[in-house]
């Protein structure tokens, strides 16, 4: 029993101060999307809320129906993205103003989930698609907390749970097909393509019919940019697309975290301080005997 409470508290304070004293790393440049970035363009003014995309998504991804929220469990009616729903159509209705909105992974240019993922299970892989490798996942669920859109979902009900999120139908892409949701959409409300081309198309639509849209493409720069782009006739924050600013969502936490470990100086200093305290206490203990 060499350590006193006082000494332990002292050591902790020292470590805390050393961590807090580190200045956040200089604001990193906003990363650009990969040149071959693929994505979706969802136009809320075209969507008729038929939910064909949700059915096709379930089929393509082999997801079980999510009947828990429906009366008598008759319907596949997830109330939000869930481990059994990689995409869901939501409805915003206030008076006469109505808008559907399709929720799925935004495939951020700088994804917070990947930033929070300690082993790289969630990572931007080919075409900038944020994909999941269950072999690297330890189930910490940091991605769930980190994502500003609430996309990654953890299979709490399973014995060997995984994270479930839209991966832009990567198996289908590999076999030369487009994602299931865009393939079946009867009005092309959601279309698939290269992000750069989708962005051009979105801007063309806004320019062609001024007044039809909120004059902004959500995802162009929001949260550092996303590969899924949105057009809407109602303000984006009302349909669940938060105002994130142009900074990448994981910027702040990453600068702190990366700053703490820069050059491994802070951990080395902390352990050195603890070592000094231990040696000192042991000496004092020996001399007291």
């Amino acid at each position, binding site marked *: 029993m060499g350590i*006193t*409470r006082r000494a332990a508290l002292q050591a902790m304070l020292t470590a805390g101060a050393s961590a807090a004293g580190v200045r956040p790393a200089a604001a990193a440049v906003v990363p650009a999307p990969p040149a071959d970035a693929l994505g979706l363009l969802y136009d809320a003014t075209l969507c008729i809320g038929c*939910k064909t995309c949700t*059915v096709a998504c379930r089929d393509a991804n082999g997801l079980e129906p999510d009947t828990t929220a429906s*009366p008598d469990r*008759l319907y596949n*009616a*997830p109330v939000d993205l869930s481990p059994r729903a990689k995409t869901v159509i939501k409805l915003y209705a206030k008076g006469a103003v109505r808008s559907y*909105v399709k929720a799925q992974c935004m495939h951020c240019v700088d994804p917070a989930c990947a930033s929070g993922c300690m082993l790289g299970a969630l990572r931007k892989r080919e075409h900038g698609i944020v994909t999941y490798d269950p072999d690297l996942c330890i189930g910490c669920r940091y991605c769930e907390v980190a994502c500003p859109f609430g996309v990654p979902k953890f299979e709490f009900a399973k014995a060997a749970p995984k994270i479930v999120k839209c991966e832009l139908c990567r198996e289908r892409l590999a076999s030369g097909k487009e994602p299931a949701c865009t393939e079946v959409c009867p009005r092309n409300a959601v279309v698939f393509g290269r992000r750069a081309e989708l962005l051009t198309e979105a801007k063309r639509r806004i320019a062609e019919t001024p007044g039809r849209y909120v004059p902004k493409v959500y995802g162009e720069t929001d949260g550092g940019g996303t590969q899924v782009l949105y057009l809407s006739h109602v303000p984006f924050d009302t349909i669940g697309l938060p105002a994130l600013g142009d900074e990448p969502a994981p910027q702040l936490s990453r600068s702190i975290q990366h700053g703490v470990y820069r050059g491994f100086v802070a951990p080395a200093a902390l352990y050195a301080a603890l070592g000094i305290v231990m040696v000192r206490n042991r000496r004092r203990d020996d001399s007291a005997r």
Partner: protein
Amino acid sequence: MTFQCPHPDRESGSFSRRDFVRLCTMAAAAIGLGPAAAERFVEAAERGAKPSVIWLQFQECTGCTESLLRTSHPAVDDLILDLISLDYHETLFAAAGHQAEAALRQAMRANAGKYVCVVEGAIPTKENGIYCMIGGRTALDILKDVGGQAGAVIAIGSCASWGGVPSADPNPTGAVGAHEILRGKAVVNIPGCPANPYNFLGTVLQYATYGTLPALDSDNRPKFAYGQTIHEQCPRRAHFDAGRFAQRYGDEGHRNGYCLYKLGCKGPVTHANCSVQHFGEVDGAWPIGLGHPCFGCTEQRIAFRVPLHTTVDIERPMPPDTYAPIHAAQGRVSPVATGVAGAILGGLAGAGFMASKKLSDDSRPSPPPAPAAERTDAEA
């Protein structure tokens, strides 16, 4: 002696070639084939290449025969007899006794290995099948004999397909379907109580014209008719999706034609085409069209086993006609729970503090004895 079916001569009958072609087109459409197939049906029939059909009846109610004959479209019974050569049918033939049995043997000899054996009714197996005997022979014997030499065997109705009513618990006669007896032989099941005549006719005509049998599902039912559930094509489906249900017979929902699911409709698990191929060619003439829940008559695990008004699980749940909110409702923590959790955490923190204090005191070389009151007031 060849047995002749009692049907009017084509020339003097009440129907024209046009009617005949129309029937063939309907039959072709029923099995998912185009007008070209209908023409081949007509050609085959006109060449006289009508399939010889031997129709056996065992533990049955003759409902399947009735549904085949009692169609409201004019002269359909005559037309059926013109498309096929019905060489033995206990309900329809004029002959009786030994004469009838002779007709059966004659037809079997003349078309051995080519005729179509249609089985209507279940086959009792207990006590060596003595519960159903015709002409001194058990149903078991007759089926093994006639079915064994047939080119194709078609089990019409639920009884012949899997036992039907006679096999309902406790199944006193050990009734089984035809395929249980004719092991190793391809038996096409056309279940239904009664079976839809067009599903039967389409299967027979495909065999007669092309020499093939339709693609079958795992229960040997033609996929063209039994590939989808009633629910998938139900005319009341929109009411189901919108959550509009008849809650009891005769209530407002029932009168408005709402979904019958809550009255026990088995449509979501019943594979059949009744919702698109109504009976007797009368639009709406099928159970759900008449306001009665589907009974699940084509499904062995449903009909005569699951009570009529018991609801079933949805085989393939689909989205309802409602939408998720933009922000899903979050659970809220009640103030009482917060208080209780706070009290527990506070107690633990206090206990930890006192324990660490005691630890520090013990580590001193000569700790002064602490008063007992101070050590035990952790919860205070």
